[in-house]
């Protein structure tokens, strides 16, 4: 009976051990401490406090969009990049932004970055089938995931960039944090 119990114990411990080996112990014993590392201001990168990497890609209507040009436009306080793969969570986030942020911050440009559709046409079709035509979002067709890789984004990543090109938020969408970041824009 003792050896049987030992086998059971081993069976239970193996996945926990593997989880620890693969760096997943954070979930078994999660930490609430702030581990964000300080960044050197003026450097280009995807972290909060860094200068946002510039890019030029097409929106779903075929218009070329360059981040630096948008930020220097008149009546533009900042830019929001939201990474979407047209999933349930993405729909919740985008619906929330459409209701609570887009109407309140008219001087902010809201871009939904479609990083899964391989063509401008397919990105346009996804925008239409998900009901986001005329929503206040400009949908960008990131057909080879250029912007996704520049910003180390994933589904739901929400990035706020102020008029100077500095990133002020880069995390999963949260309504109150996005509102706070947009309110803080100069």
């Amino acid at each position: 009976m003792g050896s049987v119990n030992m086998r059971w114990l081993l069976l239970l411990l193996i996945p926990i051990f593997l989880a620890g080996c693969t760096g997943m112990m954070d979930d078994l014993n999660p930490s609430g401490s702030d581990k964000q590392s300080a960044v050197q201001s003026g450097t280009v990168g995807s972290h909060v406090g860094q200068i946002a990497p510039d890019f030029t890609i097409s929106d779903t209507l075929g218009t070329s969009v360059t981040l630096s040009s948008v930020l220097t436009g008149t009546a533009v306080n900042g830019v929001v990049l939201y990474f979407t793969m047209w999933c349930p969570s993405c729909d919740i986030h985008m619906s929330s932004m459409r209701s609570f942020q887009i109407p309140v911050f008219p001087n902010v440009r809201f871009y939904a970055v479609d990083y899964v559709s391989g063509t401008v046409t397919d990105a346009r079709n996804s925008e239409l089938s998900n009901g986001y035509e005329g929503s206040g979002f400009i949908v960008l067709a990131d057909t080879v995931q250029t912007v996704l890789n520049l910003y180390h984004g994933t589904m739901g990543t929400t990035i706020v960039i102020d008029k100077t090109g500095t990133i002020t938020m880069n995390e999963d969408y949260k309504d109150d944090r996005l509102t706070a970041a947009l309110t803080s824009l100069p």
Partner: protein
Amino acid sequence: MLAALFLGSASLSPSLSWAASCCGGGGGATLLLPKFYQGMVDVSFDLEKYDGFWNQEGKYTPDPAGSDLRQYRLNIGAARRLSTKWQASVLIPYVWNVNKYASATHRTDGIGDMTLNVWYEALDDTSAWKIRDLKDLTPSIAIGPSLVIPTGISPYDGVPSDDVTGRGFYRLDGNIIISKTLHPWSASVALSYGSYLERPVNREVDYVPPYRKKLGDRSSASISLSYIYYLGSGGDALTGTASLSELREADTTLDGSQIDNSGLKKDSIGGTIAYSSTDHDWGIRAIWIHTLKQDGWGENFPATDIYTIGVNYGFR
């Protein structure tokens, strides 16, 4: 995250219901030993194929063109009888994600979230052949808790969503399975209610300002009906099962504040064909869990088909 959302739902019925039938078995998460068995090992392989999703209004929406999203799972389960009435089981999945988009393909694999179960056999179905009086209608009832342990790769481990194999939260469930067999028919009802433990989060793809998160309480219900067909006079049997399942999850909270419309809903139907040997030591099964790709059959959840093949062996 999507992947993780589905691993949870896959552990519902029909495997749950089937586990309550006369011969034990079922998915590892719900492994239930037949009477007089001291232990069981169960190995199954799932293919879960994503096909669109329901939005928060319940409208079915297809995936973007060129998408082919799949998750494969190898589930290793083991059960052990602790006493006449008590038994325990463990399920350990290994997960492969193969997500093809028109723009790129992502492949990843890793261990999934582990599940521990304890069952108490509160009532036995003592008359599976003929009803002579009222007490012969007594069903078998098994109740017990289960604990999901976040051993998988979660959205809080610094990885993109395509790499996720678990949800990142502990969850404690209360489960009950009620079943009644009157050969050749068997019917069962399985109910479950679970609560996630709140946890701190300081990391998503990168480290972020810390916050506390709790997924909403999860409830599930399943009903199933089985027909047992005996092969010749030797006792080998084929069991066919049809099931209907419902899954609900309440809204998530962040720092104690409820996030409206973040809960989910999914209804599914399932079919199982299972073979058991004369002595019932061996069992083989094939399961198909299907969601109807129509408005109203889900909310905030991907629509999928899950195909499972599994084998189990019981120790007397």
